[in-house]
């Protein structure tokens, strides 16, 4: 009897304390973003917001083309999201509702690359981009990313489970063209899945570090993660400014996550849980 009453409270406190530990680094990232380097490393360390945010921002914009870097991050993330949604919705629809030669073998191949470790492509991708003359060009980041195996997988699952073949057949009978069926029937029904895939693609591109590390060579072309890491040095790192930059890189993700955590979590674990 007693233990039944006690148990939920024990659970609340364990989960609650754990959640605070999980969130504490974010809190300190935003707090440190408003303090100077000397304040961050003083005793006791700052536990609440200070007033050096704009000062930090000034140092940041003096040390690197910060707004440009932020702009590239946004541009690459948006372009990569748009292309991924277009190509993966087309491909997922084809895989789910059409029969064609080698369909299963090809889908297996696509799924197989989903498990491929990211370091495998690092070196050849650099050489291909070099040969294409795409070094320092944003398209080197968003065009390869548009062939997303995960995107194809997610779209195919969604089409197969929510768009009846009869509906497509009926539209065909009524004289709707094939591309018309895709644009006017399939795409609108895919909206929820497009939202999930869009969020995931945007976030992955925004956070992408290895991709730009390989192909972006000049600081004016850096995306945000690369630019921030270039500010780090063995001596005299401007920690306040670096924290401000990190906080600015993190804030959009926190906002996106708070607004859509359920959709994001179920999308990101879709491959694992289903």
């Amino acid at each position, binding site marked *: 009897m007693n233990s039944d009453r006690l*148990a*939920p409270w024990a659970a609340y406190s364990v*989960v*609650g304390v754990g*959640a605070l530990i*999980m*969130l504490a*680094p974010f809190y*300190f*990232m935003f707090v*440190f973003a408003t303090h100077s380097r000397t304040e*961050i490393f003083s005793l006791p*360390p700052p536990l609440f917001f200070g007033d050096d945010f704009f000062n930090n921002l000034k140092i940041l914009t003096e040390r690197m083309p910060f707004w440009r870097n932020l702009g590239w991050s946004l541009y690459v993330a948006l372009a990569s999201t748009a292309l991924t949604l277009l190509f993966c919705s*087309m*491909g997922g629809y084809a895989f789910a509702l*059409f029969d064609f030669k080698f*369909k299963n073998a090809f889908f297996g191949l696509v799924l197989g690359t989903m*498990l491929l*470790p990211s*370091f*495998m*492509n*690092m*070196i*050849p991708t650099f*050489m*291909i981009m*070099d040969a294409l003359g795409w070094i320092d060009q944003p398209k080197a980041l968003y065009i*390869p990313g548009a*062939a997303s*195996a995960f995107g194809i997988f997610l779209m195919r699952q969604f089409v197969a489970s929510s768009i009846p073949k009869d509906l497509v057949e009926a539209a*065909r009978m009524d004289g709707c*063209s*094939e*591309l018309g069926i*895709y644009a006017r029937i399939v795409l609108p029904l895919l909206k929820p899945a497009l939202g999930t895939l869009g969020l995931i693609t945007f*976030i992955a591109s*925004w956070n992408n*570090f*290895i991709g730009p590390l390989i192909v972006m060579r000049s600081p004016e072309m850096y995306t*945000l*993660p690369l630019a*921030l*890491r270039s500010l*780090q*040095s063995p001596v005299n790192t401007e920690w306040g400014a*670096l*924290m401000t930059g*990190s*906080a600015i*890189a*993190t804030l959009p993700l*926190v906002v996106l*996550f708070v607004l859509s*955590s359920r959709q994001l*979590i179920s999308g*990101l*674990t879709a491959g*694992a*849980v289903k």
Partner: protein
Amino acid sequence: MKLPAALRLSPEWTPYVLLSPFVVLFAVFGIFPLVFSLYLAFQSWEPTSGLGAMEFVGLGNYAFALQDEWFWKSLKNTAWLALASGVPQHLVAIPLAVFIHTSFKKLRNGAVGAYFMPYITSTVAIAILFSSLFSTDYGLINVGISLLSKVPVLGWLMPANPVDWLNEPDNIKPAIAMIVFWRYVGFNVVLYLAALQTIPADIYEAATMDGAGRLQQFFHITLPSLKPMIFFGVTLSVIGGLQLFEEPFILTGGRGGTDQSGMTTAIYLYRMAFDFNDFGAASAMSWLLFILVAALTWVTNRAFAPRKGSA
């Protein structure tokens, strides 16, 4: 406006048209790099001398990798990190998921969200933040430790001097493992919550009727039911751990740390190519690491064949 029948896309050809943009990109940027990397692993080549200057060296690059002390050291580091960051994630995620599953209703999404949030944020921003938290002097983590060392009993467990997390070879790996743990534990909580939902409630009711306590129920019902998910989740963690790159890369300034003690294999093969200009050896190393990852995946898949299709 309708197109004449001859010009309209027939259902037969439609899938090819729909798939063509994906197929082109997938072939050029997904499959070709792999084939090329396989070819490169058998060549000796210096990027400065142009693509024509490749020379076939047979298994030379593999032999070089397998005799390279740093390569072995990087493999050991990687294995250590994969285990030390992977296993604790599950030891913590399972009880957390059980607590959330049994006691949280309204606050459930909030609790899951708090644990999941690190997973979606920028590794670079996080690693930068942690490199300040891990600072020897005045870093928040050392300040916390020195506060705890003043508490009786607990204080005996705490180091007397500030810990040099990022420069001392013995400390850098635990520091990296802590960040990786923090980042991925929430992902595993979600996996286990999904698995917990599939256990029928009446099993617990029957067990309660039979007088089984909470702990007994946990060890005799919950844990056995979670077994397939535990193996699947641990596999995912180990495979992910073997690819570790960004966290140690940022924490060690891209070099692998004092005595290469934070250098994972992924970092080493990056350095082999881009710092030491040996693309052939780097490709051979990437295939060796890939074989290791694939073998581990295969072994675990064999052990849990009934759950086929879950990946």
